[in-house]
């Protein structure tokens, strides 16, 4: 009897200890852990301003002058980048703005501090040419794949909504490589995706692209989020990083070929391929960035936010004020 009671006590104690360890681990994740001078940047493997600055060595040079080191972490999607931000494993991360909406609604302690590029023709809705689709209404009953929670997913939803097709088209959640495989097998009728998977969809007909949707008032963009802790502890480092990225944006205006060449070199692409992948995506000039972020972009961000809120895909329902608070242009020096 006594033995049994001891066993029971031991068991209870064990569970309590395990629970406490679990709690410690979880609170540890959200506690400030590092104050070294390493800037941890989460990146996507795409030809953008971060890639250009990294390949040219500009970012590293600027960081070294101020006594910082830069460490890069590659993520496959903004979904993973968000998890890393939440776990405080990176200080800055680049992702699609739809993932930034998720981060804001989930109240991750981050702010949107930079718009890397406004998505253009590099994301498209394509369908098999043999289907002979003439008008949007022909899409009824068709199967279209897209990576859920991505900017492409949002653009697709906006396109369907504009043509009153929501719920009439079968949507499938696939990553870009799976889309290419499913397309080759003939499992899907269409896809909304980005480069380089887009070029691999042969015999395709483009119905719309993100450039057209942006013109229609549904803009998507790739953005950079920074943790509030990093903003507080290293504001000058953040300013420095954005300054270098701003120089890349200006370089794209004056020497677009240089951007194609350097980003291509980093990603093992020819300048031509890099140019296709960049497409008509817009890199807002550094001196226009603060105004762009606080005006046009905030409105668009709010539109995305409201739509995703209606779809019940968010943790909370942020309003316009929340978007204004989330988008922080203080660290863009405006190219001065």
């Amino acid at each position: 009897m006594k033995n049994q009671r001891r066993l029971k006590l031991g068991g209870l104690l064990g569970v309590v200890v395990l629970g406490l360890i679990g709690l410690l681990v979880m609170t540890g994740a959200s506690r400030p852990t590092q104050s070294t001078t390493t800037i941890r940047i989460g990146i996507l493997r795409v030809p953008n301003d971060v890639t250009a600055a990294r390949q040219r060595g500009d970012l590293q040079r600027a960081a070294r002058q101020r006594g910082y080191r830069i460490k890069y972490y590659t993520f496959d999607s903004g979904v993973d980048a968000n998890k890393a931000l939440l776990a405080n494993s990176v200080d800055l991360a680049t992702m699609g703005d739809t993932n930034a909406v998720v981060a804001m609604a989930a109240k991750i302690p981050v702010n949107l501090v930079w718009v890397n590029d406004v998505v253009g023709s590099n994301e498209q809705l394509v369908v098999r040419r043999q289907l002979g689709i003439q008008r949007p209404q022909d899409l009824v009953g068709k199967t279209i794949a897209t990576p859920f929670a991505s900017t492409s997913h949002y653009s697709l939803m906006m396109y369907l909504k504009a043509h009153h097709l929501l719920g009439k088209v079968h949507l499938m959640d696939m990553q870009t490589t799976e889309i290419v495989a499913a397309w080759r097998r003939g499992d899907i009728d269409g896809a909304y995706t980005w480069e380089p998977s887009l070029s691999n969809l042969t015999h395709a007909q483009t119905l719309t692209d993100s450039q057209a949707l942006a013109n229609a008032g549904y803009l998507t963009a790739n953005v950079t989020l920074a943790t509030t802790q990093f903003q507080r502890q290293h504001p000058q480092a953040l300013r420095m990083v954005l300054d270098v990225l701003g120089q890349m944006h200006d370089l794209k205006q004056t020497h677009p070929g240089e951007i194609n060449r350097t980003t291509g070199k980093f990603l093992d692409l020819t300048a031509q391929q890099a140019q296709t992948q960049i497409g008509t995506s817009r890199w807002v000039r550094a001196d226009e960035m603060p105004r762009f972020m606080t005006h046009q972009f905030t409105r668009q961000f709010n539109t995305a936010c409201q739509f995703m809120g209606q779809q019940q895909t968010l943790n909370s329902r942020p309003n316009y004020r929340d978007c204004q608070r989330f988008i922080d242009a203080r660290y863009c020096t405006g190219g001065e």
Partner: protein
Amino acid sequence: METKRPTKYRRLSLGVLLLILALWFGATAAHLVSGILLPSPQRVVTTFISLCQHGYNGVSLGTHYLVTMLRLIIAVVAAILIGVPLGLVSGYLLRVKAIVDPIIQFIRPIPPLAYYTLLILWLGIGESSKISLLFLAAIPPIYIACFDAVKKVNVEYLQSAASLGANAKQRFWHIVFPAAAPDIFTGVRSAVGVAYTTIVSAEMVASSTGIGWMIIDASHYLKSDVMFVGIIVLGVTGVALDWGIKALEHRLIKWSGRV
């Protein structure tokens, strides 16, 4: 003393469960952790209710659940239909063993996700690739349990039956099969377990229904309350499934442990 024990232990299990609940409740009520990392029990319950009412992604929670269970059941039934005869015959006839055994032994230790992309390329993104993945996960435990069961059959029984004039077919149906039945059930139980643990992987690619897919999709939007609901639903179902198979075994095979 002897009769008291089971209830005592059951109380212990219940105590642990309540303690975990209390810790969970306390930690979230005191705001020790962010609601995204660990949603409160109340929030999980309200999410469950709203999922029941409004569904997830336009599909009701019940449908998600049925889709997942249907995939599992089809895969496990197919694995039983193919795995049981294969395992028994393999154990009985060495020639068949020589053909089948290497294949099963090769598939068995491979993590299913490793060959899932291949299955998708071969079978497409529809139900067949998902069910095949579960089937391939379920078949080795059934095969191995049946094979071992036959090997375990007392040789003296077979010899005495043979000396009494029973032919191979009679010996199989009257001695080998009944003797192996309890082990077959054990095999089915572990097969359901293995297939069950692969269900989220199976619904990870090109899906828009199923509890596993719901968990994955919710993780894209950091909706941890939905993930918790999905995980709890899967956990409770898993326990119930295992319990159900054990009860069935108890009812059908009364001679277990007596042969």
